[in-house]
């Protein structure tokens, strides 16, 4: 399990990469907006309609309360709450679905948020039609049905029984899946930091490092026993890169310093080398295993008098 990195090993990383120590000392980590909101500029707007449509219910409820009609005040309030909750769940569902397209190992929220949001929207429309406006049950059901159909066309209900991200049969496989998920979350943070950088060279370096990192995770997923060999990479280097990239992205927004840029560049160059080395080491292990297998096969063939 990767968990928190061993501070002694992190100290070694800080010593081994020039400039990392001073950057980490200068820049504490912070969490920023979700990655998907940064990657797609209009992502924050989808589903807003569901917040706007119930708005007339709010002044309605206030006026009902002012004139002392508690039943219609409660009906308006209930409709408003249901519809707003539906909008909120839908927007969270949309965001989760978008994030899911970028990740392979992170285990995401498995609740069908968008479908729940759609159900609340339909129920909210029906309840408002029946209790707040006074329509009969058939007409209220028609309003709920039209709302559900509209929701399905505009945002889509999620299919039931979505696949689990991993086939995690045993405890060790689950550990590997968790470690990969945590490592991927760090890479997502790194990618998010890259979107905030203005220097195209540094941005592309960070993106290249992230792609290298993903390639290593893919390799570990193909052969989970590699996890134990790649533990240092997961524990120390990814965490270091994440901190430095986040710190740089934040610091250069506040002050553009050539010195900071250069030390960040030095860090990135070293990290790129380390990542490539790590990847090669995993590939070499693969080749060594293949050599052993070929040797075993040769001996078997000789023993059986075929070769």
């Amino acid at each position: 399990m990767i968990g928190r990195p061993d501070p002694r090993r992190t100290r070694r990383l800080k010593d081994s990469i020039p400039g990392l120590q001073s950057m980490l000392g200068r820049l504490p980590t912070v969490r920023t907006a979700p990655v998907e909101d940064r990657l797609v500029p209009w992502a924050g707007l989808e589903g807003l309609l569901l917040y706007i449509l119930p708005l007339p219910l709010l002044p309605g409820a206030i006026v009902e309360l002012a004139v002392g009609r508690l039943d219609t005040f409660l009906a308006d309030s209930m409709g408003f709450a249901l519809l707003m909750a539906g909008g909120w769940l839908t927007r969270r569902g949309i965001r989760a679905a978008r994030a899911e397209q970028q990740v392979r190992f992170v285990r995401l929220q498995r609740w069908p948020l968008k479908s729940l949001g759609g159900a609340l929207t339909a129920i909210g429309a029906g309840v408002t039609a029946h209790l707040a406006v006074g329509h009969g049950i058939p007409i209220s059901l028609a309003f709920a049905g039209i709302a559900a159909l509209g929701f399905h066309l505009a945002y889509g209900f999620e299919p039931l029984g979505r696949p689990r991200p991993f086939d995690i049969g045993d405890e060790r496989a689950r550990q590997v899946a968790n470690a990969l998920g945590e490592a991927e979350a760090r890479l997502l943070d790194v990618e998010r930091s890259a979107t905030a950088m203005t220097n195209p060279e540094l941005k592309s370096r960070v993106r290249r490092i992230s792609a290298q990192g993903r390639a290593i995770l893919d390799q570990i997923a193909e052969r989970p026993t590699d996890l134990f060999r790649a533990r240092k990479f997961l524990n120390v280097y990814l965490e270091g890169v994440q901190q430095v990239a986040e710190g740089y992205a934040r610091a250069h927004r506040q002050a553009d310093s050539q010195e900071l840029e250069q030390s960040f560049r030095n860090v990135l160059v070293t990290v790129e080398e380390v990542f490539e080395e790590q990847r090669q080491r995993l590939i070499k292990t693969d080749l060594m295993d293949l050599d052993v297998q070929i040797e075993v096969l040769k001996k078997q063939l000789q023993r059986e008098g075929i070769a």
Partner: protein
Amino acid sequence: MSELRPPSTPPSPRRPLALRMLGMLLLVWSVGLVSCQALFVL
């Protein structure tokens, strides 16, 4: 330990813009209409 291969997550198919617009129109017609009715049925 066998290979851990998560199912790839293809981007969810997006409906054509016309259908999405129709969906929004239906939402306006149902949710928006009942909200406005509730406001004017005071």
